[in-house]
């Protein structure tokens, strides 16, 4: 997960580079691999074919060369003069040995001819051996004059062995190469029988050094820088190089070949007559690819080999080239990735920058992106948004200043209203006080002078004045409550109700009311002064109605439950109850002002209560039936929103303007 998170947090450029590399690398690697292995396979095939061709060619040359030598020998052995020559040498050899004048005269006669043949056919030496095994002539000095039969008994002398073989087969014979330390050369013998008529009279033998083969082998045409032809002989378990090696000119019969080495096992395969191709490490420890042949006639193995590194050097070059190409490609990919990522991230950065500038309050900044793609569209709509913002902001600023102005006006109006209320309270109440007082004086002083009807009129005057006083007081309370906004605070409702009850203690006692207040009421956030007014009015109200029930003493109960996001209180009384059709109207003071005796006594209290609850964002309602008491419920939200009452609404409530006038004014403001 950490790595995923890491990838998510990368900048766009880094992401693009990663993706591009990922997308480019996989096919590239596959393509390189396929092309490399294909070209290697083709090359391998090619080289194999080439090597096989070279091997066949070399093996052919070797065979041809040796066959040529055999043919030469056969030709000499069947020359008609040869019987004569052997006969003459044999007789001179018998008559006085090789130092006798007779032998020397024969030697003088025939040596030039024999030497001529030896030299022109490319042999090292030429021997004439009569059928008794005696060497009766040799171009080089004869050191051992014993019969070859005799020598064969005691020594491993190749010539004597081959002579015996020839006497048995009466055919041309060829020996293995062996090394002659004395002449420091490797050489083989070829022998052929000589017949007089059908009589076997002797053998003509030749020694052939490896020089001819070496010349063949040292022709490296078609073998590149490391290829070579290796001729190997096997005598018993001993393996020997017959010719010099390309990288070791004195290797013939001197460099040992371990039969257990890789090279040795390959050579053994060749001697088993197998054809094939192998890759192994040669005498230099180099890895080589080799093709081998076996020449059964001459008991020689021919191996043509070449360093694998050379064979595949072109493949290696190809690989290097592919690597360079892919490297270049990757660099191009990275550059493209960076370019594309930049082309995406640059406008985004520009947008971020511009939005930063704008959020710092400079609304004149605009994104300068001309692209027609999605980012261009984004920039365009961003600019449009900013334009709209500026427009909206201008409107807001304008409205703000308008509101400021209105606020000042309204503050002035409010101030005027305050003094109006004060004056009204003073001036309206004064004459009423007079009416009440003088009516009471009349009643006191002139009671006897009035008749029954007069006294009744007097009583109505007092009563009217009393009600008017009450109404004026209520109106003033109500307007004061609406206008004053106290801060919301944590209020312990237990304490609040206690102090409210204290304020109307006298009233409670007067009506012998029984107050039942639930324990552990909550602490809630509200306007302390107004909430106190709420409980005071509701308790007052409850007692007022309950006292009209003559059957029992007034009982008022206050309860609370928590209901979701609200505090819910109720005030229950055992009064006369309220007809459900008036349940809404009891909270409406203006309606009440127009009513007759039916509503008398409701007071403005409930209107005051409703206004306070409304201000808090709560609700108030009543559940009641006539004659069965009433329960007033109200709720206060737990999360109070600070709600400032609109001044226009206050003006309407206080009757200074009508709702229609207010609407008209608001409309005009919107247009302006």
């Amino acid at each position, binding site marked *: 997960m950490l790595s995923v998170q890491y990838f998510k947090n990368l900048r766009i450029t880094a992401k693009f580079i990663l993706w591009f590399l990922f997308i480019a690398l996989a096919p590239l690697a596959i393509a390189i691999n396929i092309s490399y292995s294909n070209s290697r396979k083709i090359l391998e095939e090619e080289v194999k074919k080439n090597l096989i061709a070279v091997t066949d060619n070399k093996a052919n040359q070797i065979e041809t060369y040796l066959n040529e030598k055999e043919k030469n020998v056969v030709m000499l052995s069947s020359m008609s003069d040869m019987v004569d020559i052997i006969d003459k040498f044999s007789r001179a050899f018998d008559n006085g040995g090789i130092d006798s004048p007779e032998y020397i005269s024969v030697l003088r006669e025939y040596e030039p001819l024999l030497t001529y043949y030896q030299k022109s056919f490319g042999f090292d030496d030429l021997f004439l051996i009569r059928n008794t095994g005696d060497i009766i002539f040799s171009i080089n000095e004869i050191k051992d004059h014993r019969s070859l039969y005799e020598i064969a008994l005691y020594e491993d002398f190749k010539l004597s062995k081959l002579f015996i073989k020839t006497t048995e087969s009466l055919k041309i014979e060829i020996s293995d190469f062996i090394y002659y330390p004395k002449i420091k050369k490797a050489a083989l013998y070829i022998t052929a029988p000589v017949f007089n008529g059908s009589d076997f009279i002797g053998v003509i033998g030749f020694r052939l050094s490896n020089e001819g083969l070496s010349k063949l082998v040292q022709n490296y045409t078609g073998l590149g820088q490391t290829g070579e032809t290796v001729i190997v002989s096997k005598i018993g378990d001993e393996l020997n190089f017959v010719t010099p090696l390309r990288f070791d000119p004195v290797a013939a019969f001197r460099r040992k070949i371990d039969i257990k080495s890789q090279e040795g096992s390959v050579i053994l395969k060749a001697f088993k007559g197998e054809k094939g191709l192998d890759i192994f490490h040669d005498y230099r420890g180099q890895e080589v690819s080799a093709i081998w042949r076996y020449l059964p006639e001459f008991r020689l193995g021919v191996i043509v080999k070449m360093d694998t590194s050379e064979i595949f050097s072109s493949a290696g070059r190809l690989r290097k080239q592919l690597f360079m190409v892919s490297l270049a490609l990757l660099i191009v990919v990275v550059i493209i990735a960076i370019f594309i990522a930049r082309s995406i991230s640059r406008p985004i950065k520009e947008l971020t920058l511009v939005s930063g500038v704008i959020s710092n309050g400079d609304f004149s900044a605009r994104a300068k992106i001309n692209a027609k793609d999605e980012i261009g569209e984004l920039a365009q709509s961003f600019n449009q948004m900013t334009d709209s913002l500026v427009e909206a902001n201008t409107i807001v600023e304008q409205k703000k200043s308008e509101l400021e102005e209105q606020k000042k006006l309204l503050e002035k109006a409010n101030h005027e209203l305050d003094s109006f209320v*004060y004056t009204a*309270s*003073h*001036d309206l*109440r*004064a*004459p*009423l*006080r*007079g*009416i*009440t*007082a*003088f009516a*009471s*004086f009349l009643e006191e002083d002139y009671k006897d002078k009035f008749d029954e009807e007069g006294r009744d009129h007097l009583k109505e005057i007092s009563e009217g*004045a009393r009600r008017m006083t009450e109404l004026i*007081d209520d109106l*003033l309370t109500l307007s004061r409550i609406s206008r004053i906004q106290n801060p919301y605070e944590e209020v312990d409702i237990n304490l609040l109700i206690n102090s409210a009850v204290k304020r109307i203690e006298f009233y409670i006692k007067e009506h012998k009311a029984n107050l039942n207040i639930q324990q552990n009421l909550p602490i809630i956030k509200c306007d302390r002064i107004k909430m106190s007014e709420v409980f005071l009015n509701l308790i007052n109200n409850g007692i007022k109605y309950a006292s009209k029930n003559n059957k029992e003493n007034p009982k008022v109960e206050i309860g609370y439950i928590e209901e979701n996001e609200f505090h819910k209180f109720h005030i229950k009384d055992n009064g006369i109850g309220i007809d459900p059709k008036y349940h809404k109207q009891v909270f409406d003071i203006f309606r009440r002002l127009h009513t007759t005796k039916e509503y008398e006594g409701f007071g403005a209290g409930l209107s005051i209560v409703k206004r306070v609850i409304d201000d808090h964002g709560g609700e108030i309602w009543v559940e009641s039936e006539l004659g069965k008491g009433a329960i007033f419920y109200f709720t206060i939200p737990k999360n109070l929103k600070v709600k400032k009452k609109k001044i226009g609404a206050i003006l309407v409530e206080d009757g200074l303007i009508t709702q229609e006038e207010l609407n008209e004014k608001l409309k005009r403001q919107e247009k302006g």
Partner: protein
Amino acid sequence: MGKKILIIDDNDQDRKIIKRFLSKAGYDEIFIVETGEDGLKKAESEKPELVIIDTILPGIDGFEVCRQIRETQSPSYPKIIIITGSIDAVDAVKARKSGADDYCAKTSDCSSLLEAVKQLFG
């Protein structure tokens, strides 16, 4: 009871009402003036034991009259009660600050005023 009481009030009806209730309560030496200026003169000349002052008066208002009486005479003489026809609670505080002994609202039966007078004269 022989107590001199001065009433300063510009409202004719209120003067009559207060005078009637005080007389009925047995205070017969009552002086009545309509303005603060006259009230100050009367307070100086008659040395009443109690001055009852309305808050709103033509010329200097009731609180100022109260303050001036307190300045020119002793802090405990005469007793001063400020009365008001308004229901503004601020007046009560202003009354105390200007040196009044008591403060009460005007009512048609003068019950609170009579109560206050009774208390001051012990």
